[in-house]
């Protein structure tokens, strides 16, 4: 018998059956079926599994599922609730920052967390803020441009 974990997933209260000593990554992929949360390394090194916990980026593969009880978790789906792309998503598309796309959900969520803490990050701050996210395709240049592009447009949404 698995424990039930109640938490807010992308703004909605959900109730998920999952052992609490499993990872949040397992909970989201295997129990909720959210495949946008990627499993790269499984050990905290690639950032593909990045989600937001109370608005801040964490590695879902390192987080015990029990830790999300009663808390807010956001995945990439949560950034465009009404199907309207978030500036970060637009920026990534426009700047050609998406190739195979495996790293993209994690990178966009890490960037989102960064912009919440630092709305106008320098290039160095962007590099630092995204250092936990690996991309094997793009070489990061376009990703940094995409984040800068989005940073300029974030306030428009408010």
């Amino acid at each position, binding site marked *: 018998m698995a424990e039930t974990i109640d938490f807010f997933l992308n703004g909605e209260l959900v109730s998920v059956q999952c052992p609490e000593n499993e990872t949040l990554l397992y909970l989201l992929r295997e129990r909720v079926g959210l495949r946008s949360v990627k499993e790269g390394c499984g050990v905290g090194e690639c950032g593909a599994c990045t989600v937001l916990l109370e608005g801040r*980026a964490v*590695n879902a593969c390192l987080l015990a599922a029990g830790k999300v009880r009663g808390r807010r978790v956001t995945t990439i789906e949560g950034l465009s609730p009404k199907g309207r792309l978030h500036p970060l998503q637009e920026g990534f598309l426009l700047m050609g920052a998406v190739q195979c796309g495996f790293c993209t959900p994690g990178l966009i969520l890490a960037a989102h967390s960064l912009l919440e803490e630092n709305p106008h990050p320098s290039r160095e701050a962007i590099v630092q803020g995204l250092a*936990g996210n690996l991309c094997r395709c793009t070489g990061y240049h376009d990703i940094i441009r995409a984040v800068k592009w989005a940073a300029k447009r974030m306030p428009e949404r408010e």
Partner: protein
Amino acid sequence: MKPSYLAPLTLEEALEHLNRRGETVRVLAGGTDLMVEIRAARLKGNTVPPALLDVSAIPELREIRMEAGHLHLGAAVTFHTLEHDPLIKKMVPVLSAAAAQMGSVQVRRLATIGGNVGTASPAGDGITPLTALDAEVKVVSRDKSRVLPLTDLITGPGRTGLAANELIHSFSLAFPAAPERCFFSKIMRRRAVAIARMNLAVQIRLVDSGMIQSSRIAAGAVFPTPRRLMEVEGLLIGQLPGKELFQACGRRAVEAMRVVSGRRPSMAYKEPALERLVVQGLEQTCGV
């Protein structure tokens, strides 16, 4: 069925659980080491801890405060907090500097200082600055608490003297009376998100004449258990910073490593690395 995950909100409750089930319950803080360990065990088909005791939300373990010339740091304070907290940045900048270079933003948000000590990696990036600062650690169980030097709690690579019913409660460090200069650096495989092969924490006070008045230096993965590099500190006191002095310090550090750790195959790599790290650390700290 016994629950696989417990998240008590008070210290008393946590210690009660540990006292009853210490042999089967594993303490969980950020999980950045433990969840990786559990994953590896699952993949190999080995047994995993039947229950996790999550102490990361216990308010008492998250406290940061000054008391009587000491900084009190709860075991569940995260590296993200160590990196950004204004009090820590001001009072013990070497700890903030170390925290800023640890893991990735995502990892720093979860990882705690108590977990770093619990793992007792020879190059733990929290352990080395705490060693330089002569941190004491408070360890508690249901029936007693004890305070000991951090360097006594860590008994070897990956080993601590914690009993099954004990919890790391907090650290206490004396902070400098006057501003000091500091440096933290490490040698690792990749720029971010790698565990250090060696690290160095330096804190130095220069008086107005430019002379070195005091110094605290510790290096990780150099000795079998963490300890200050007193041999090097001794060379510096009362001297003026300079390249020759620092080169002598680099050689002295290597000598100390040979004497304390004995000769091992890894030394061929470690000796030049330590020498360079010490010279670079001292030059940058003193602006030479």
